[in-house]
């Protein structure tokens, strides 16, 4: 069996909230697979089911070929899980936390030194420090060490980069990339759409449903509308003006430009770009620049998610 994770029609409901609504997917062995979506999308519920901490209302999931409900005890030894909330012991030191988590699995940090070293070496200078006194990025590295100390065959990380700064985020993704190179299957969730590009494949998840699943490049390319980047110095005014462009489908700020999609799929992009330029010039935005641009995963997420509160 080459799938490391296989989920079929998973459902989970809390009161009236459908946390997971018919979720199916496969993660191949050795893949770095990302679930991308905002808070409340169902990512944490899904991860808890996959690591045997919660049972689905219906549907099946297999991890490493084992049923997440029936085979939970066999599975728990073989998966690593880093929860979204910091779950180490704040009053224990770095080394004490690591020793504790190793001992739960009948091993010691010394015996596991070789395979945790690339990450452990980065936190070793603070081995005596209480976990509570670490910075956000360092806490995440310690949590990753603790999740890896029993040599799991697959690693689940629930929002490891939430709330940490852009530098620590890049470092953490570098570490995950290295684990993948060593053959580990890594399943990770994140609310940051730009992090999709660090994954082999991604599933976009919103309101308990998978709304897209493919490689990041293929997801981005699936937008289905011509897309333009518009730059204007009067940024907020230009945003409002663009909303009244006759053929507009959507207008959204994207960093230092606005992304504009057009409802017409059969008109050449150069023609639409020309119309947008004229429209903005007539509206008084003399310095506006318009250029066709490649869609991102975030463009597709927004297109597919529809109105968030229906």
């Amino acid at each position, binding site marked *: 069996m080459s799938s490391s994770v296989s989920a079929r029609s998973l459902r989970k409901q809390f009161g009236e909230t459908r946390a997971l609504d018919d979720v199916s997917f496969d993660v191949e062995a050795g893949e770095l697979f990302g679930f991308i979506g905002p808070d409340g999308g169902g990512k944490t519920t899904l991860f808890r089911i996959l690591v045997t901490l919660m049972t689905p209302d219906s549907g099946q999931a297999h991890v490493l070929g084992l049923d997440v409900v029936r085979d939970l005890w066999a599975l728990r030894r073989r998966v690593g899980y880093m929860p979204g909330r910091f779950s180490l012991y704040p009053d224990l030191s770095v080394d004490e936390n690591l020793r504790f988590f190793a001992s739960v699995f009948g091993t010691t940090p010394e015996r596991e030194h070789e395979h945790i070293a690339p990450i452990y070496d980065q936190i070793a*200078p603070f081995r005596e420090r209480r976990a509570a006194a670490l910075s956000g990025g360092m806490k995440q590295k310690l949590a990753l060490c603790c999740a890896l100390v029993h040599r799991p065959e697959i690693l689940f990380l629930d929002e490891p980069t939430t*709330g940490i700064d*852009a*530098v620590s985020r*890049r470092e953490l993704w570098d570490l995950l990339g290295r684990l993948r190179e060593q053959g580990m299957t890594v399943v990770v969730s994140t609310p940051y759409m730009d992090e999709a590009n660090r994954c082999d494949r991604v599933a976009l998840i919103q309101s308990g449903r998978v709304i897209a699943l493919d490689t990041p490049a293929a997801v981005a390319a699936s937008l289905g509308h011509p897309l333009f980047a518009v730059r204007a110095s009067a940024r907020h005014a230009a945003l409002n003006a663009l909303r009244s462009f006759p053929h507009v489908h959507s207008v959204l700020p994207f960093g*230092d430009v606005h992304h504009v999609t057009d409802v017409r799929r059969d008109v050449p992009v150069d023609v639409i770009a020309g119309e947008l330029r004229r429209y903005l010039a007539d509206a008084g935005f003399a310095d506006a620049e318009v250029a066709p641009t490649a869609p991102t995963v975030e463009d597709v997420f927004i297109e597919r*998610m529809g109105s968030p509160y229906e």
Partner: protein
Amino acid sequence: MNRAIEANELTRRFGAFTAVDRISFDVRQGEVFGFLGANGAGKTTAIRMLTGLLTPSGGSARVAGHDVYTEGEKIKRSIGYMSQRFSLYEDLSPRENIRLYGGIYDLTAPEIRERTAAMLSRLGLESVGSRPVRELPVGWRQKLAFSVALLHRPSIVFLDEPTSGVDPVTRRQFWELIYEAAARGTSVLVTTHYMDEAEYCDRLSIMVAGRIAALGAPAELKQQHGTSSIDDLFVRLARPAVSEQPSRLAPPAQDKGESKGPA
């Protein structure tokens, strides 16, 4: 000219550790100012001084015209504050939250009534105005929290990671609320880990190891440093401090979770 914030050589030490090291910047009326920095760079300490919660060790600062050393109480009444962690009372409904904050800020009953109606209508929340906030989607809560932070019409509002974990559409709707508030003359100081949002600011600062390492309009900064995005600039400036000076970590419980609400 009115300045919502004027900070000059503002400094805060904790024992031998200098969390904020002589930072100078100002925020103009109606300006959206991005206050960026790595975890542990000193942002939260700086914000606590500027919101009257922590006395500086040195330097000077005025917020909404009030001195941070002697007029902390006046500052608290003149500013709005919202964070991802602390925003609204979840057991109370939107209407009850608005009434509570209106009372705290000494608004009259007619003012509270009128502003409640206007706010719920602007946000499209009339239908859920009496349901516990806990039951609202995160994005709605954050937009409501922002509006509540503006209820007493402060001259400046501090937003600490207001869009963390929020979906990409709501994040943008949130920024439209920010622009609207700025257009009415409210100054906005905002922190974020979303580097695309940094590009939406009129000006921004990047703190590294207690100091301001860059200050200016996003386009200016990218040009000066020859980077294509604020993300790249941020990483270039902050990486040495994050990776190589780990002993400069903020003291325990200093950088996270200690911020308090406006009350």
